[in-house]
């Protein structure tokens, strides 16, 4: 790891002032489960690390039936898993958190950090950059792309967004609060991620001197929610694909649906095609399967990851069936 300056401010404002206005020089430390290992591997080499641990009040999870769920950025994954309201109102969110299997990760890792963790792409993690460029072109299309994107993969980015929580939070219309030196702003999580076009860009719209402090989730309003992940291993593994759904029902039929795929594209991937397929229909295995099929209708697999198209389709189907059965 490179030597760095460690700052431990007591307020968000102070923290924001300690951050640089361009990427690379400063990083924010929350749980550290991703940042520290990335620094050890010199994938990220900040000159200054700004810890949020001494800022009080960033780790609360609160619920209000009118405004919904507010999750402090420093709330841990374990806190979210244990939160009664989240369990009752947003089972799909707790299911997503449950996919984060390492107990150590759950205790150290934070919800804010989970949303901001860097891609796991092995070219990136081996020092070849977010876009895995070598001699002017990406290594991924002809390389080891078994885990790479099948949607939104026109390039130059081929990695997949690593967040387990983002798909369901997007399906629930969550927003994030960002604090910068000149105040705060709210951004819909669905507009928070982007596919970078150059190595200078990051995979989200947060500015280098902004801090994600809170996630707000509107009231579930009776929505049926679920997340379904497909992993190789039972424990401590990244999903090959995941699907998150939130359904507003009108009796037995779907009034409106949000379907968001994870680990299939450089960003969490909402599927209007699947949502449209579900609209007004009574949910059956066949309807769920048709929605899954619609969700991957535009998929363009690379040389090794065609199987992920099938997995995404199945994940959507199973998430829908899980939601409609009301599984906890």
């Amino acid at each position: 790891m490179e030597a760095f300056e460690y700052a431990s401010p007591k307020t968000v404002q102070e923290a924001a002032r300690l951050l640089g206005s361009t990427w690379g020089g400063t990083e924010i430390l929350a749980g550290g489960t991703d940042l520290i290992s990335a620094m050890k591997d010199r994938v990220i080499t900040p000159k200054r690390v700004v810890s949020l641990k001494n800022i009080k009040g960033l780790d609360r999870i609160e619920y209000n039936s009118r405004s919904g769920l507010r999750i402090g950025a420093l709330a841990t994954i374990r806190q979210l898993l244990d939160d009664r309201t989240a369990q009752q109102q947003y089972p799909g969110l707790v299911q997503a958190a449950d996919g984060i299997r390492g107990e150590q990760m759950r205790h150290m890792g934070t919800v804010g950090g989970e949303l901001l963790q860097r891609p796991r792409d092995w070219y990136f993690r081996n020092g070849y950059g977010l876009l895995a460029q070598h001699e002017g072109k990406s290594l991924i299309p002809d390389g080891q792309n078994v885990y790479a994107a099948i949607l939104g993969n026109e390039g130059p980015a081929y990695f997949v967004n690593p967040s387990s929580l983002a798909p369901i939070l997007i399906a629930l219309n969550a927003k994030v609060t960002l604090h910068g030196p000149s105040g705060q702003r709210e951004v819909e999580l669905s507009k928070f991620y982007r596919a970078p076009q150059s190595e200078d860009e990051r995979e989200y719209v947060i500015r280098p001197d902004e801090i994600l402090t809170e996630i707000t989730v509107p009231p579930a309003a009776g929505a049926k929610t679920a997340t379904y992940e497909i992993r190789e291993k039972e424990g401590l593994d990244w999903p090959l694909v995941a699907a998150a759904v939130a359904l507003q029902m009108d009796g037995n039929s779907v009034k409106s649906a949000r379907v968001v795929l994870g680990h299939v594209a450089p960003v969490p991937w909402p599927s209007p095609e699947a949502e449209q397929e579900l609209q007004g229909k009574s949910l059956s295995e066949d309807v769920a399967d048709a929605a899954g099929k619609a969700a991957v209708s535009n998929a363009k697999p690379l040389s090794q990851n065609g199987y992920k198209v099938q997995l995404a389709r199945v994940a959507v189907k199973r998430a829908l069936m899980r939601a409609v059965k009301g599984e906890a």
Partner: protein
Amino acid sequence: MATCKYDWPSEGQRGLIGESIDRIDGPVKSSGRAKYTYDTNPPGRLIAKILQCPHAHAKIKSLDISAAQKLPGVKAVLVVKDAGSEIQWAGDEIAVVAAVNEEIAEDAVRQIKVEYEPLPHFVVDEDLQKAQAAGRTKEGGESKQGDPDKAFQDPDAVVSEGLYGLPVITHCCLESHGSVAQWTDAKTLKTWTSTQNVTGGPGQFGQGLRLKNVQVDDNNIETICEYIGGGFGSKFSPDSWGIEAAQLAKMAGAPVRLMLDRDAELKMAGARPSAYARVRVAAKKDGTLTAWDSESWGTGGVGPAGHPPLPYVLEFPNSHWKHTEVLTNIGGARAWRAPNHPQACLITMAAIDDLAAKLEMDPIELLLKNVNLAPPVLRKAYTDELHVAAQLADWKKNWHPRGDKTPGHIKRGMGVSLHTWGGRGHNSECNVIIRPDGSVTVRLGSQDLGTGTRTVIGITAAQTLGIPLDAVKVEIGDSKYPPSGASGGSTTVGGVSNSVRRGAVDARDELFAAVAPSLGVQPADLEARDGKIQSKSDPSKSLTWKQACAKLGVKTIQTTGKNPGPCHLGDSGVGGVQIADVSVDTETGQVKINRMIAVQDCGLIIDMKTAESQVYGAMIMGVCYSLFEQKVMDETLGIMLNPNMEFYKLATIGDFGEFVVHMMTGPGYDERGVIGLGEPPVISPGAAISNAVANAIGVRVPTLPLTPDKVLAALEKGAMA
């Protein structure tokens, strides 16, 4: 049968031997008090770090260590590969640095300036034609027996053809390779090394150092390894980095610890060679196997890796095999638990399983029918083991012909495999020491790889001397102790239990001779049991162990036990059968292990618990390599993409399912004496699991690991066929 004085006690007289006994070093290990190489920190010890080559194949044009040398805190910089050297794989050592702490050592490594001339590399092994076209192959042997061509052309022959294979995997020792080196004076080197070869350490260090012009006598080198976090065949020598630690310690005048980082461990410290084969296998309609033909290939890096012994276990009347070595720029191969056997086993047992499916035969029936093709000494064992395994797996009820026809996307399947190994005890010498106060020490230059060696030594001595296990002090892990072989090839348990048995019998007999006069009996009339030395003819004539030892006065008994030696205490050649019961999600390609059954013989078992643990551990490794493990290489860069435990995937507790272990004991097994067990149970899991998946989904997934992409691809191909 005439008895021989060192013979193992007969059934009913064995006491501790064969019982299920906790390992004696369990408490120090589980409480963290056991000191591993990594925990060894002599005062003033420096940390060494390695500069690794980033290229798969390159020539070093120039190398400048001056900036690294100048960094405050750096105590020594050693160039391993000079300018002009050719590097054959990414990760190879270029230079090493010793500094006062890890951070400075790492910084210094980054200050070394190396100019490389990259050369063309080749890292793919699965495609033989590609390797041939690239000129990266070498003949690896060929053999023919009988007339396979004629046998395949027999109109009555049922022939099955298939492609089977396993990729390169690494050893992934949880304690990485490395050592701590300390020169206690200018001529004397002490090394704590994570090694499978404590006794061999001084010779290996001495030779390695003298090659580097460091003059030292083997005599003045001590190698210590009390505890080791896994070796699996990859830790037989101190390795270049062990020698470098000693060189750096000499240069710096301070102890140096050099342990590989995880990425270096996975890139540099060993790999199991891959093996792929196109196989044809034939049988008569009744299942009698008639012919084998295989064209196999695999890589062990830039050097040769041997070939899988094909066909495995079963000697076909007509057979032909040809092997080709694929030469790649990846880290060199090392022995991986049962070298070349898991590869041969998968290729053979999968091919036979496919043939059984074509014959519409139960594969267990087919194996039983052909058991006469196995070596004569194992035929009965295999027959017994196939029956026991089938019973434990409830095979008759649970097995079905290929392809689970039950509705739904979860398909269940059963697969079987069998394997063999040698396991004769290695050369071993020990001292058994009985002191007048009754304390007993057994001392030998062996090592406990985590297998229970310490415990087996203790049990053997305690049983022979008739005293409790905790009354025996076992001292191993130091090259100053009597020489005992390296732990490889499942040779340790036979070596150490036999030498300790002989040494303990002699020590016991000396004690008998010393106390016999005071009891007024002949020494031959004495026995040692239940903590007493007593007359066999008149048990009222007895002394407690302590009373007996007190009769030694000021004399200490010290004997030397050796293996090999008189009396039949051990043997070679074991069999084993494993059955896997799996469920496959045909929509996602996920394979779930429901149950693994392992039935294994290994002669006389000293400690049932540590023997069973060996089998459990082997099945854990087996599930790992069957479902997940793979060294992923990028063709363009020539580097390993997953040198970490995030994407070099190992199974965790939720992936294993239930393990059932059954050890074959009793008549037919016990009288063979002690035979090794380390390798055999790790051989079959790949084949058993692959066969179970084929049985579940109706098609063969040709290569391990059985990941969702491959399972779905096989299903798709099967649906099109």
